[in-house]
């Protein structure tokens, strides 16, 4: 191909010009034009709701904005437009509703940081007593609002099996307040409250929790993890969740360029590596049992994932390999073993 042909992926990048890719190498993504119309993604449809419309104030490369757009549009399609969203305090709330504007094209309610699940319970109950059973309810929040401050309300919503789909956009920290550690922050990661100082720089090993597992332990009808690297899978999971009544939980890995110290164009790449390394296991569970996992074809060493993020840069300083890289690799291996992510060669 000719070097000056703008339609090739081999265009020489100039300063500040991104390298163009016309297909996503290394994925199983299939372009919409190659599948039949009923298999096409919600996002490709001209009828999509654009529930989270353009003009919001998210950062360039925001994984949460991408995840939310796909998830809510899918939920909107599944509900025939009869959807109400409840939002926890956090980035998603702030960047979508700068006064006096709103990027939401569906009824949307923000109350507090830690009560989205309970507020959603109230909305769903109101719809029932009002006889509007066709109206569905989603609650959404970041990992801080879900795994930390909102966990009590979330657990209550789960155990009562309230008819709410809760979506957690997991960017592994309190990004809205300036990148602090949450219980979803991975070990060794640098945050403002786990600085690269002292004997154990970054986030401490042996801490944190898996809310998807906690959700599974509640034996609710549906739990899934997903990622913005596999948006078709995300859409499928939201669609499935919307086909079920009762408490449902989807946690989406949404890389945060700002908080993770990554280039904004690496969001999808990072999300994919998180899956391919075994760092972020992707699975579905129904009524307390894991029913499917997203297999890994070729396991990628965790260093490839870590090296793209400044939050892990301290692991790669100096000439010696930091032993904690091996611990992170072991964590990935344990995930792979636990969920059976890798078929025996």
């Amino acid at each position, binding site marked *: 191909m000719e070097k000056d042909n703008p339609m090739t992926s081999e265009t020489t990048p100039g300063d500040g010009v991104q390298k163009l890719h016309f297909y996503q190498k290394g994925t199983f993504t299939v372009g919409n034009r190659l599948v039949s119309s009923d298999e096409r993604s919600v996002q490709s449809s001209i009828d999509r709701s654009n529930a989270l419309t353009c003009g919001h104030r998210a950062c360039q490369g925001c994984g949460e904005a991408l995840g939310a757009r796909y998830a809510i549009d899918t939920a909107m399609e599944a509900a025939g437009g009869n959807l*109400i969203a409840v939002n926890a305090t956090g980035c998603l709330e702030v960047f979508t*509703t700068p006064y006096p504007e709103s990027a939401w094209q569906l009824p949307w*309610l923000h109350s*507090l940081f830690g009560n989205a699940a309970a507020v*959603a*319970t*109230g909305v769903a109950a*109101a719809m029932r007593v*009002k006889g509007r059973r066709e109206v569905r309810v989603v609650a959404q929040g970041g990992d801080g609002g879900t795994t930390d401050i909102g966990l009590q*309300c979330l657990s209550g919503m789960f155990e009562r099996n309230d008819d709410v789909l809760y979506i957690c956009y997991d960017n592994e920290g309190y990004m809205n307040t300036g990148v602090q550690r949450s219980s979803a922050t991975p070990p060794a990661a640098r945050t403002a409250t786990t600085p690269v100082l002292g004997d154990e720089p970054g986030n401490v090993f042996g801490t944190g929790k898996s809310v998807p597992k906690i959700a599974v332990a509640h034996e609710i009808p549906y739990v899934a993890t997903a990622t913005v690297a596999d948006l078709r899978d995300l859409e499928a999971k939201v669609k499935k969740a919307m086909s079920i009544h009762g408490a449902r939980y989807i946690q989406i890995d949404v890389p945060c360029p700002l908080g993770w110290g990554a280039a904004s164009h690496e969001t999808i790449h990072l999300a994919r590596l998180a899956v391919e390394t075994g760092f972020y296991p992707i699975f579905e569970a129904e009524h307390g049992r894991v029913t499917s996992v997203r297999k890994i074809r070729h396991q990628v060493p965790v260093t490839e994932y870590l090296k793209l993020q400044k939050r892990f840069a301290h692991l790669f300083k100096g000439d010696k390999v930091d032993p904690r890289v091996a611990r992170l690799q072991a964590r990935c291996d344990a995930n792979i073993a636990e969920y059976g992510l890798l078929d025996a060669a």
Partner: protein
Amino acid sequence: MLKQIEGSRAMAEAIALCRPEIICAYPITPQTHIVEGVGALVRDGTLQNCEFINVESEFAALSVAIGASAAGARAYTATASQGLLFMAEAVYNASGLGLPIVMTLGNRAIGAPINIWNDHSEAMSMRDAGWMQLFAETNQEAVDLHIQAFKLAEEMSMPVMVCVDGFILTHAVERVDIPQQEDVDTYLPPYEPVQVLDPADPISIGAMVGPEAFTEVRFLQHYKQQQALSLIPVLADEFEDLFGRRSGGLLRTYKTEDAELIVVAMGSVCGTIKDTIDELREEGFLIGLVTLISYRPFPVDQLRDALAEAEHIVVVEKSVSVGMGGPLANDIDLALRNMAHPPRLHSAVAGLGGRPITKNSLADLFRQSLVQPWEGTHFLDLNERIVARNIHRSRKVRRSGPIAENLIRQMATEN
């Protein structure tokens, strides 16, 4: 219908008559009998078209009510004491969002030291939260105030707390006239929200507001409460017309016309004060009472009218702002502010943590205010001996640690 009934059960029946659509409950003494009562009425089908939701905390209770109210349902919850503090963040949120939720407080002290008995500390802690706060003197009034509260909340699009003295009213069995359903239906029309979550007309509720408009939002909240000062008496009049008895309003006077001393108080203690007044008047003591029903909005003008002619005001209140004194006395001072010849104000704190407020102690207090007035805050029936010993000892040994435990240790060593 006249019944001899526990206050909590009577309130439960009244709340059910208001046809709430969502009731959220979390147990805390002494409020629990109320939600148990309404819950039973939902279960046995007396209260139709209502969901009773058992939540995992008071924070969730009010959060569920917030969601339900924003989605257009009439929502109710109840709490007390620590429970109100645990839901504090949502308390402010509900009023900021303009949601007409009605909540009963079974007024109870706040720990530590943990105490399940009655005072007004928790209600006072939320006096700035943007809710209207109505205090009931009797269980009859508690019943009637709930019916008025739903109407008030929905007309103002602002939440209302009905404050009922824990145990003293909630657990007292007495004569209460429970209204008829058709009368309540006449008085209280169905809830028609001004703004509602509806897929047919999507709106965003609860967006961030910056410095450019936040003051205006708060001003309008304040303005609305000032407007409620006009509405509350109207609702009480309408109530009287329909139900044939006077309940609610901003305040109530008792023998104040010729009074040289007027007592100001809120809640059930006003009954004991009235009995005390009757006895003191037999001695020739010209004394009267202003029962404050609406604490928020605070009726400055009406209080001024009621109190202006007195020489002395004694405020008896069941709460203390530690480091300041009685918050109600402070607010009454506001009503007397800038008067040419304001009456002398005496502040007394009484009944903390359930200490009985007796006629004898009140009579002594009122007499003392004339002959031996005090500065600052008087603590009624304070055990001065034990307090003095504690102060004396702490002067000698600077001992940190919980006050209650130090006090108990001293009381034990005294015997």
